[in-house]
């Protein structure tokens, strides 16, 4: 882990993550406000008002809840997002420069499996439990395609280092010639951040699923954590598919920020238009349709990589 950025950059990176998450949440709430017939500007401040509301609210306890697992899982969501962002190169270096950055990002999004299920389990409530298992069923469906999608840029760049992958895209971004991998990756990001349409574990038809028994700070941490994971996943997509910090005029870190913001907004807007996907649908879709397509994509990428030497 040489050449990493010094630790004073941790605070700005976390602040940037929070800012982007709040903006994305604001846009989502603004659309909701427009649906309700109110002006969009009133919607943009909703995330801040919700934060104030949840900070004032008293946390709840349920009977025979597994408090250790429940609380540790609900507090772990935001740190998970921060850790994912730590591997994203902002310019030449990341907070944590690692030659195996891609594998670490993948390992972190698998930890989300454990975290989300524990939030559902810990509350000792039927809706939470069912929500946690719906999430796991979905995760089994999207995770393998996600892993294969991550392999595509790795094959093209010949390295597991995010900075190296970003550098190899000088000229042609990977999103242009591996669109299937990019789409699958985005689908996976929506999955591990439990955002619509991949949110059966936390959806309205289950009374909130894993969120149903959370109140106060715990609820804030998980709701905010979902947005944070979405932004972190989008940030990781920037070096993988969107050329890293490349772009005219602005410094590299500004481009990474801009691309992260744009991709997160795109994911939120696209997600709102789709109904909540049910796990039994997604499992078959993921294994029978998406996985073969992504493996075929990997084959195409590998052929091109070998052909161009």
């Amino acid at each position, binding site marked *: 882990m040489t050449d990493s950025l010094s630790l004073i950059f941790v605070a700005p990176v976390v602040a940037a993550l929070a800012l982007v998450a709040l903006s994305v949440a604001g846009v989502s709430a603004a659309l909701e406000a427009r649906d309700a017939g109110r002006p969009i500007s009133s919607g943009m401040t909703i995330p801040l008002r919700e934060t104030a509301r949840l900070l004032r609210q008293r946390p709840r306890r349920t009977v025979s809840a597994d408090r250790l*697992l429940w609380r540790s899982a609900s507090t772990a969501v935001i740190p998970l997002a921060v850790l994912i962002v730590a591997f994203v190169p902002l310019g030449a270096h990341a907070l944590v420069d690692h030659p195996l950055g891609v594998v670490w990002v993948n390992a972190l999004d698998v*930890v989300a499996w454990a975290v989300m299920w524990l939030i559902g389990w810990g509350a000792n409530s039927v809706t939470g439990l069912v929500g946690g298992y719906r999430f796991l069923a979905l995760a089994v469906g999207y995770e393998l395609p996600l892993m294969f999608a991550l392999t595509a840029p790795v094959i093209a760049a010949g390295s597991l280092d995010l900075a190296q992958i970003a550098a190899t895209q000088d000229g042609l971004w990977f999103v242009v010639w591996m669109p299937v991998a990019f789409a699958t990756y985005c689908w996976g990001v929506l999955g591990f951040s439990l955002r619509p349409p991949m949110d059966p574990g936390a959806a309205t038809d289950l009374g909130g699923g894993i969120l149903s028994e959370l109140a106060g700070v715990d609820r804030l941490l998980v709701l905010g954590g979902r947005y944070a994971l979405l932004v972190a996943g989008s940030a990781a997509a920037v070096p993988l598919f969107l050329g890293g910090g490349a772009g005219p005029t602005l410094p590299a870190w500004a481009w990474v920020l801009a691309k992260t913001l744009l991709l997160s907004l795109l994911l939120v807007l696209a997600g709102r238009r789709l109904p909540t996907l049910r796990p039994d649908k997604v499992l078959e879709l993921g294994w029978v349709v998406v996985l073969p397509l992504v493996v075929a994509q990997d084959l195409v990428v590998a052929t091109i990589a070998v052909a161009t030497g």
Partner: protein
Amino acid sequence: MTSTDVAFWLCASVSVVAGALVFYVDSMARATYALAVSFVAVGVALLLMGQAYMGVIVILMMVMEMAVMAVYMVMFMGMNPALMPMSMVHSHRSSVAAAIGTFVLLGAGAVLVPWPTRRGAPPADVTAALGEAIMESHMIVMITMGAVMVATIVAGVALSSHRTRYDRLGDDLDRRPADDPQPGGVGR
């Protein structure tokens, strides 16, 4: 005692203690995640040995396995009390004896074997060197073996399923849509 030594002993003790906790905690979920903590500590120990790829893969795979174990836990264990005293052991005395015996044997081997001193420096790409040392000329066999194993697992599950494709698709394999208790999303 360098910081690596301290870190290693920490990981080793966390791993053993968490592993023992699997049998002492009061709930299946806690047992599962105590096991996950134990495995993650082993992964960190591998990272300390300079095997970065092996370490992170161990962590990734083990967390995913523990999460999937939560599914099997409910499927096959039925009564699954949360925070209730439960017993996770069978044939108590013989398994304790076997466990202690194995630990003593392996520990004695690790401590008493005269390990050679290092000659030269570790190669630049530790993972590639490890891979070559284990697999040597059989590398391509090992690579295809992975795909073959996945196919075998899928085939085994398909063969052991008590509903065959004739149950699903009718005697002439022409019933559409298929007769499934839980229809999937693709309409096969």
